[in-house]
Every structure is written in C-alpha cells, then in structure tokens.
C-alpha cells in the first residue's frame, strides 16, 4: 500500500507541475514583442534602452533574440498563421519575402509622427527600406545597421620597418593595403607564418595567419564568398531573370577563393560562425581580415589588445571584372526593424522611432551601428572612438559600392545557400568546379521557372 501512495503522490505531483506550467506559460503578459537578431545591439537594448522606454512610457516590451535561421523561420510561421504574435521584427532584406504579407506599410506612420526619412542615403533606402517587387510604393522597414564588408589589417605590422623591407624584397612593391584581390592574397601569404618565426620583431608562440573570414558552410561560406562573386561584377541575374552565374569568370573566382583559404586561412575558420574570426584577430593571430562593420568593436573595444592598431581599407578590385568596378564589393547586409500589421502597430512604430531616431546618438555610442546621416555628422558620435577617423570614411565609401540585393522572395534559395554550397563543394573537391557551377545555374533556372518569372 505504501507503494500505491508513492505512485499516487508521484502522479499528483506530475499533474500539479503540468497545471502550474501551463498557467505560468499563459500569464506571461506583454505589450510589444520584438523578434531580434543577435548582435552588439542586444546587450544595450536589454540593459538600457528597453528599461528606459518602459519607464518613460509604461509600455511593456519583450525582446526575443533568436539565432538567424530560426529568426526568419519563426517570423514566417507567425506570419503564415496571422497570429499577431510579434509586433516588431528584425529586417534582413534577403529574407523579407518569407513574411512580407504580414509586414505593415509605414508611410502613413512616418508622416503622422514626422520620422526623418531623409536621413537615409539612397542606397540604404533601396536595400533596406523598400521592396519594389513584393511591396511596391511602400516603405516597409527602418534601417538600423546597413553594412557591407571592408578590409581590416594590422596597421602596426604594415608600418613596421622590418616587415616593409622584407615585403619589398620579396614582392618588389610596398607593403600597403591591397589594390587587387591578387595583392590581398600575396599579403596574406606573406603574413602566414608558423610558430617560432617572428612578426614585427616579436617571436610567435602560435602560428600566425594571413587572412580570414568566418566560413562555416553553407551560411558563413556564402556570406564570405559573395564578396568575390560581386567583385567579379556578377549579380546573379538581370532584370529578365537571365543568370550571369554561368560566366566562366566565376570559375576564376572560386579557384582564387580556394587558394586563399587553403594557403592563408586558419583551419578553424571552417567552423566559425559570423564574426568569430575577429576574436582570433583580437588575439593577434591574424594579420588581415574581412570585416563586417558590426564586428568592429571586437577588435577596437577599449582594452582589446588590438585597439588602435587596426587599419581599414576598401575591398580590393578584381581586374577584368564584368562591370569595370574600381574596387571590390559585396552585398549590403545588416538589417533594420520592421513593424508587423498588428493592433499595436502605432505603438510599435513609436518605439522604433524613439530608439532609432530620438536616441540615434545614444544608440550609436552603445553599439557603433551607423545608418543615418545625423550619426555620421554628430560630433559626439565621431569623437566616441579614435578609430572612427580611419574607419568611417572607408565604411561610407564601401557602402556606396555595396550591392543592394534583388528584392525577391527567392534570394536565399537561388543565391545565398547555393552559392555557399558551390564554394564549399569546390573547396572540398565534392565535385569539379564545372559541375558545381552547372548545379548552381540549374537550381536558379529551375526556381525561376517554378516561380513564374520565366517560361
């Protein structure tokens, strides 16, 4: 009988746990719910902006930070179910098509609340705030950290007399930020050294690597390799949905990329997610790197060993690229904030306006994210970090070359994932470059036919 009682008690406890759990789950009440991307803005929003806004207005705000994949998946699910669950979402132009039907148009709110839309450059508006294909004639998001990658290098090593002489002797030119991707390769090879050798007169206790990006496949690889693809002057497809990825220059590009990775990347780069390689640079294990600007504080943060020792330059040119681009380029990434069409639409917009306009300076000081003209001109912003003097001009100029992605829902399925797989499959000899290119082209053409863009 003792045992029966034990069992009864056990099942009672279980039932109780179930009820308590369900009740607590139901009563988690909220007013505004934000679906957020991870990033340097998360800490400041959690610790400072949201509590401050809640105190000022009495509006309750819940921010959910989700890993990128899951973020757009969730937003899409909630949109498909028309659930009014999220009021505000993170806007990444590449994934907008997954939930665009549920996104609120902002024009009337912008007018009503006097939002300074003229603060955003044409390129930013084009890439992050409108979508002529899916939502013609409307503003659908407010940009927050539009960005495109630049080149970062160890200024102190580039200026070191011994290194300069050694480089001059070996390559017959000055050690300076690269003008072409081939020069970038040379510099990267030059700095790739085993432990025991020296760099700038200091003995290396661990191997030093020349260049890196975070290239975990398929996403990381795609993000990094697209800098080559767009530098080649390719865009994926034209206005008639005819692909240009069948161009043989893509094979030159992927051959270069394979060499660069094999000869100069730290092997760990293949398992690194977005921006992880910058931690490696911070530890002085990396001489030069691809830099998505939102990672800049990793290497320039106060107290970082590399703070004040980094130089910035535009991505180098690919001679013979299909559009005669004078420099290299990648797509304009980063994101913004969008409002879902829920009953809280107006309050949601007011919060976004408060955060990104009223608090523009404070937001930038805490996150180093730039989007608006007033941020680029604000003396308080510009004086916040010494490195802005060299960083911001490069950031702005590179943005003017950035490629705004074509606003179709299929961008991820025809470009992002397959391009990453293409580079990865060639790098690891899964198939020949020609086979991989054919696969890439076939996939894009099939999806365009499926979607009815071409016959």
């Amino acid at each position, binding site marked *: 009988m003792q045992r029966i009682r034990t069992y009864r008690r056990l099942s009672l406890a279980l039932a109780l746990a179930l009820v308590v759990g369900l009740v607590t789950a139901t009563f988690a009440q909220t007013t505004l719910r934000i679906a957020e991307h991870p990033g340097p803005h998360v800490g400041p929003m959690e610790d400072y902006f949201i509590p401050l806004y809640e105190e000022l207005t009495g509006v309750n705000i819940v921010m959910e930070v989700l890993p990128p*994949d899951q973020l757009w*998946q969730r937003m*899409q699910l909630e949109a*498909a179910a028309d659930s009014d669950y999220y009021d505000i979402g993170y806007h990444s132009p590449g994934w907008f*098509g*997954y939930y665009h039907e549920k996104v609120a148009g902002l024009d009337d709110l912008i007018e009503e609340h006097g939002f300074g839309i003229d603060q955003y450059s044409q390129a930013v508006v084009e890439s992050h705030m409108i979508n002529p294909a899916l939502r013609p004639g409307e503003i659908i998001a407010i940009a927050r950290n539009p960005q495109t990658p630049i080149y970062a290098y160890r200024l102190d090593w580039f200026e070191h007399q011994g290194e300069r002489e050694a480089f001059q002797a070996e390559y017959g030119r000055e050690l300076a930020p690269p003008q072409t991707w081939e020069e970038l390769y040379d510099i990267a090879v030059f700095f790739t050294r085993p432990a025991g050798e020296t760099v700038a007169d200091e003995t290396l206790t*661990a191997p030093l690597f020349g260049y890196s990006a975070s290239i*975990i*496949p*398929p*996403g990381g690889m795609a993000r990094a390799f697209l800098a080559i693809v767009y530098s080649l002057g390719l865009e994926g497809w034209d206005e008639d949905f005819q692909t240009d990825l069948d161009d043989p220059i893509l094979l030159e590009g992927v051959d270069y990329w394979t060499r660069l990775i094999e000869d100069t990347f730290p*092997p*760990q780069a*293949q*398992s690194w997610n977005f921006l992880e390689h910058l931690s490696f640079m911070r530890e002085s294990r990396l001489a030069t790197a691809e830099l998505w600007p939102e990672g800049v504080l990793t290497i320039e943060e106060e107290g970082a060993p590399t703070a004040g020792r980094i130089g910035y330059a535009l991505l180098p040119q690919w001679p013979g690229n299909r559009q005669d681009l004078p420099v290299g380029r990648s797509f304009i990434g980063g994101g913004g904030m969008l409002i879902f069409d829920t009953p809280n639409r107006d309050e949601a917009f007011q919060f976004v306006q408060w955060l990104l306009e009223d608090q523009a300076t404070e937001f930038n000081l805490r996150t180093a994210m730039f989007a608006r003209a007033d941020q680029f001109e604000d003396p308080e912003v510009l004086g916040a970090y010494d490195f802005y003097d060299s960083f911001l001009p490069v950031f702005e100029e590179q943005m003017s070359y950035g490629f705004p992605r074509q606003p179709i*829902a*299929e961008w*991820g*399925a025809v470009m992002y*994932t*397959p391009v990453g797989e293409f580079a*990865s*499959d060639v*790098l*690891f*000899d*899964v*198939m020949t470059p020609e086979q991989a290119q054919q696969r890439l082209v076939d996939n894009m053409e099939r999806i365009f036919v*499926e*979607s009815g863009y071409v016959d």
Partner: protein
Amino acid sequence: MSSRRNFNPWAFILPGAIAGGVVLGVPVVQAFWTSLHRLRLYRLHDQVYVGLDNYSRLLQDPLFHLSIRSTVVFTAGCTVLSVLAGLMVAAIMSTRGIRGTAWARLFMAFYLVPFVATQVVVGMLGRLYVWEPEYGLVNFVLGLIAVDGPAWLISRDTAMLATVITNAWRLTPLAILIFYAALATVPDELIESAEVDGAGGLRTFMAIKLPLIRYHIGFVTLIQLTSAFREFDTVFALTGGGPGRATNVLSLLVYNEGISSANLGMANAIAFTMLIIVGFLSLLYMRLARLDKVGD
C-alpha cells in the same frame, strides 16, 4: 475466472494506440504527401503536385549518394565502436574482484555521464574544447605522447572519425550497462570449471561468456544502429555537416534541403526515403533476431 473473460486488454491499449497513431501516423502520411509536391518555405500556400519528380531527381543527385555513404560510415562506425567499447568495459567490470564491489557501482555511475549529457552541449563541447586543433583536449593528450594531432573536425580526412568517436562516446554507456547486466547472469560455475581447465581470462570470455550473451549483443547492436542512423543533434552542433559535405548525414541533408534551401518537397522526399531504408533494414533485422518475440 469469469472476470478474466470480461477483461478486454484493448481498453488499456487503445488510448495509447490512438495517440501514437495520430502523432506518428499523421506526420508520416504528411511527409509522403508533401514529398509528391513542390512546396517552398517562402510560399507555403502554393503547393503543386509533381508526382514522383522529387524522388527521381533525388536518386540522380550525386550529393544524395554522398550523404548515403556518409550515413553508412557514420552508422556503422558508431555501432561497431560503441558495441566493442561496451563489451570491453563490461567484460573487465564483470571480472572477479571488481564485479559487485562498491568501486564497480561508483564507476558505473560515472560511466553514465555521456549517456545523459545533452547532445547539443556535447556537440559544442566537442567543437570548442575537445577536437579544437590547437587548444583541444584530444590534441593535448596526443601531445603528451609526442604525437602531432590533426585538425580533426576541420579536415576532410578526420572529421568523420572525430564525429563518429563523439557519438560513440555518447552511445557506449548503454552498451556497457546492458552487457554488464547480461554478463552477471552467466553462472559462476561455468567460468570456474573453465578456469580449472586452464583457460585464461580472455579465452574464457570469448569461448564461454560471449556466446551466452549473443542475444544481448544483437539487441544492443540494433539499438545503436537505429540511434546512430537518425542522429541529428550531435552532428548538427559538432560539424553542421562539414567540412564540405564530409559529415553531411541524411538527417542533416533533410534539414539543409528543407530549411536552408527552402525546398520542403525535396526535404520530405529525402526523409521518406530514409524511412523506407530504415524500415526495410529493421524489418529484416527484427525478423532475423526475433526481437518481436519480446514479452512472450
């Protein structure tokens, strides 16, 4: 005896059977149905019937063949490794002088750690602290014996090995446990008489104990085989299928196709193909090993 006749066991079975039928049957039917369609993640309301198109494309796809090969290597590797390691540890645990002691119980408690450890954490732990080429545990230990360890997870040649070892590490405790318990049922007299005959420890084990627990070896093999075949969490967190496609087992292929490439029709075709493969194999195996006679 009369109430025995009134007793209807189906009253006990039905609730579970119905619940199981719904939670297992509906998704399987849905998977098959979706696999006959073209369905994209970004256009969930637009489902177009394409017949067996997804399957014929799949069968011609070299990457699918590659995934099958990875899955076979991964499954076989995990199964063999965990069964062998389990046998070895259990055999030593059940030798005289150790079996039944407090030490044995203590060891067994800690041997369970990999079994209960959260797979996602195991995967991350593996990536950051165990297989990391410069700072990881494995290469540190290899360094102690003056071996320069490879880059493990980020080299095509060793990634699969490291992934198999990680997952086998997680599966082994179950094998140890079951073999240890099975070996405890071998009557002592059998062993003693063998030892009197002068047979050594290993010979006794191979000749006497092993045949007696052959049912359990078969059973554990089947359990590990199926666990490894469908493993997702560990591989996902450890390598994400890379480097290249080196550890892109079928369950990851389904995920990548469905989520990253947004191709739900194809993803479900792969998933359903997996179901057919494993269904066939397990049917064969269960008939051979007569595991369906459990409970008779």
